[in-house]
Each structure stands twice: as structure tokens, then as C-alpha cells.
């Protein structure tokens, strides 16, 4: 299997927007890793995951290089989706495929030559663990909400694309159950890289890459030192989630909702 042949992906430094060389030696991503990329808007977060996605070879605006198992990846890793070890879920929460959910997934299954009739339905079932608005097989892809689209594409990346490395660009924007997503990806042994502004997603990641002016500024490994902050972020996230549900349901919130 392809996924088992990926031991590590290594990012080698490029340049900042003002042309300064980046100051890290190498960033290594291994199966099971959780990494968040943080920094202000326009600091180069998406450009970093795009470099990983295309296996940059000094040929992108950042000048970075991305290696697989310490070497330039073979061409089929980059060009043949069936061999590509990376799946990117973009910020874009609209899918433009003019197909039903079942047709869309079947077409993807067919392109991967997967002989498993049930996999599309299992993908929809997994997606429904990530979103509160159930996705039906007959729904049009274009009619799905942002959260539904994102849930489905994440589930697809796990089940059908079966990529060992998953890149998620601002997963929190779409209103999906982010802790459940992280749990599923971790249990499946995926390496996950989040571009995020979300405190909970950041604190749940084992490593944090801080971006500034198009360059990697710092790499933080909290190593357990943020446990108290994580506990607090979970509590706040839970309060906000419940408030959101109350507001969506049209209720008046007159009492404390916190725990």
C-alpha cells in the first residue's frame, strides 16, 4: 500500500515575502502527527499547505522544497491521485460538481478503481458524524451547506482518497464537529495539518507552526505545558456550541449555560 510507504514528509525552508531566508532547518511530518499552522491573515498559512500539496521543488512563490522519505517524491506521487499521499481540503466550502452526493462519490470510487460497493455509503455515514445536518445520498453536491460539504470532503479523504496526510484549511469555518474530526483522523493514523484561527484546534495539535510575512517564524511544541489552556478552550467551546444550538433553535438564553 502507498500509505504505508510514507515514513515522513520534510519541508525545507524557502524565503519570506521580503526575500529573507526562513530560519528553520526542516519540518518533518510523520503519520499520526497533528500540526496547526497559525498566524495573521495573509501571513502565508495557505501558501505553506499548498507547498506541501504540490510537493514544491523551489518552483512556488515561497521557494520551499518538500521531500518524501528524504528524497524528491517520484512523479506519480505528485501527479497520479491514486498514488498521491496528500489530500487537501480547501477553505472553499462550495463544491461545484453538478452531481448528487452518491454520484459524486461513486465517480471518485470508480476513478480509484476501488471494488467496494458500500464504500460510498460508509463515507456518507462518516461525514454525518462530523455534521449536525444529515447528508442524504440523493442531495445535490451544489446544494450542500458549507459544513456538509466540508464534512463530506474530509470523510472522502479518509475513506476513498485514503491519503496518509490530510491538509485542512480553516476547518472550523464551516461549523463542523472539529474534535470528532480530529479524533477520527488521529485514530486512522493520519498526519493532519490544520491551517487555523481556532484556539481549540490549535491547542489540540501537538505542534504549532507560527507564520509571519510569508515565512515560518517559529515552531512551538507545547509538550503538555498547555493542558490547562486546552481544558479551558474545551469548556468555552462547549459553552459556545450549546449557545449556538439554542440560538439556532430560536430559544432565548436567560440562564447560564456554562459548566
Amino acid at each position, binding site marked *: 500500500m502507498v500509505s504505508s510507504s510514507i515514513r515522513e514528509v520534510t519541508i525545507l525552508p524557502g524565503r519570506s515575502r521580503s526575500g529573507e531566508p526562513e530560519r528553520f532547518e526542516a519540518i518533518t511530518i510523520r503519520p499520526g502527527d497533528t500540526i496547526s499552522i497559525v498566524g495573521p491573515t495573509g501571513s502565508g498559512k495557505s*501558501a505553506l499547505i499548498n507547498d506541501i500539496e504540490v510537493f514544491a521543488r523551489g518552483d512556488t512563490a515561497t521557494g520551499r522544497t518538500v521531500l518524501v522519505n528524504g528524497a524528491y517524491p517520484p512523479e506519480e506521487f505528485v501527479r497520479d491521485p491514486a498514488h498521491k499521499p496528500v489530500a487537501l481540503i*480547501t477553505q472553499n466550502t462550495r463544491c*461545484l460538481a453538478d452531481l448528487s452526493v452518491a454520484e459524486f462519490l461513486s465517480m*471518485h470510487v470508480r476513478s480509484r478503481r476501488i471494488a467496494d460497493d458500500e464504500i460510498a455509503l460508509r463515507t456518507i455515514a462518516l461525514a454525518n458524524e462530523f455534521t449536525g445536518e444529515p447528508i442524504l445520498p440523493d442531495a445535490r453536491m451544489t446544494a450542500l451547506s458549507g459544513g456538509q460539504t466540508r464534512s463530506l*470532503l474530509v470523510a*472522502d*479523504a479518509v475513506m476513498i482518497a485514503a491519503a496518509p496526510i490530510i491538509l485542512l484549511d480553516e476547518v472550523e469555518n464551516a461549523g463542523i464537529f472539529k474534535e470528532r474530526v480530529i479524533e477520527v483522523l488521529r485514530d486512522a493514523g493520519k498526519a493532519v495539518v490544520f491551517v487555523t484561527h481556532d484556539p481549540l484546534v490549535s491547542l489540540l495539535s501537538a505542534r504549532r507552526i507560527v507564520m509571519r510575512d510569508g515565512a515560518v517564524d517559529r515552531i512551538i511544541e507545547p509538550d503538555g505545558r498547555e493542558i490547562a489552556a486546552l481544558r479551558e478552550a474545551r469548556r468555552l467551546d462547549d459553552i459556545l456550541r450549546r449557545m449556538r444550538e439554542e440560538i439556532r433553535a430560536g430559544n432565548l438564553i436567560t440562564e447560564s449555560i456554562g459548566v
Partner: protein
Amino acid sequence: MRLVIVAGPPSAGKTAVVRQTIRSLQDRHRIAYLKIDVVRAFEDEELAAEFGIPARSICSGDLCPDHAGVMVMRDAIAWAEEESADLLLVESAGLCLRCSPYTTQGLGVVVLSAVSGTNTPLKMAPMLALADIAVVTRIDLVSQAEKEVFREQIREVNPDLDIVETNAVQGTGMRYLLRAIEDYPPITDPEAITLRGVPPLGVCTVCIGKTEIGWQHHFGVVRRMEGADYLFRGD
């Protein structure tokens, strides 16, 4: 000299692909550029100003722009050679999805946008069927599953088509197109260049299936590249 013909529907990102190609290859090649359009074209002036390369455009007016392209292609090759170019990039108007302006002795590049809809590759089947390489642009806007489904539609039209996925504004993924251009054999005999396929039925000699390039081989609506203004105006 090498010849590259870039076709694709309007707003697919043809000029962005051409711009990245020029940017990456200008150190190693002397590049000339011809834009074929219908009413107005700006790309030639923009690219000439940006890169200082010889660039021209031709507007077909009331004639089918791909037919106009066929008419002027021989003149264009002669012009590019006079400019000592070793690479001629010809960009189509991208008006009609039925046309397939690729010729022999030249690399056929079709540009499609990843956000243009699932059935687009099927709708523009003739443009895909005779191309050598498909460049899928705006790939940064779609997720992995969408990319693969779009790819599957391209493969349905032409299973052998080489597919390059790119964000042409950033230039990501372009290296495979650049390699295909540089690996393509140069023109050996301009006189022998023909269209790869027969264009749709119409009223000029190109329309009726004469595939030789150059006005010398045609009759009826015949114009030279020099002083053509609009290549043809209906009465």
C-alpha cells in the same frame, strides 16, 4: 523553432498559463507570442510590456477565430522566425468549444478551469480529444475528491491526455507543462503542418475541410496577417 498552441474556453486561465510559461522559460528561450481573438485583444500588449518579447494579436471579426488562426498560422511562424524566436506560443480566442485548433508539429495544450463544472470536459470534447496535454487551472479552489472527479471526466474524453494541475497565478504545478514544451520536437517543415482534425462545417475553405495552413492554400475569405484589421467582415 517549437510551436505551442494553447486553446480553452473563455476565462479558463489560458493567458495566466502563457504568462507563467514565459516567466519560466524566457531565460532559456526566445519566445514569440500570438493571440487570436474575436473583437479585441489586450494580451499581446500586456505580455510585450511585461516581458519585452515580440507579441502580436489578430482579431477575426465576423470569421470564426479558430479559422482565422489557421489562416494566419503560416505567416505567424514566418514572423516568429524573423524575430529569431525559438518558441512560438499561439493562444486561441477560446470562443467555441467545438474547435480543436491544434496542428501537427506543435504541442497542443488545452486549458480548463477546475471550477468550471463537472460536465465541462464532456462539453468541450473536441478540444480535449486532439490535445496533447490538459492544464487544469484554479486547482487551489477545489479539494482532492473534486480534483479527481474532474480528472475522471477528462479521462473519459481522452484517456491518454497528460493532465497538469496548476494554480497558474502562483505557478504551482507548471513544471510538467514546461517539460512537455521543452521536450516537444521543433517544427521540421512549416509547409507540411496541418490541423489535427477537421473544423466544424462552415462556408470557407477551412470550413470545408482543407487543413493546410496559410492563406496561400485557400480561396474565398482569404486575408494575410499583414494589414488584415478584422480578418473578415460580413456584408
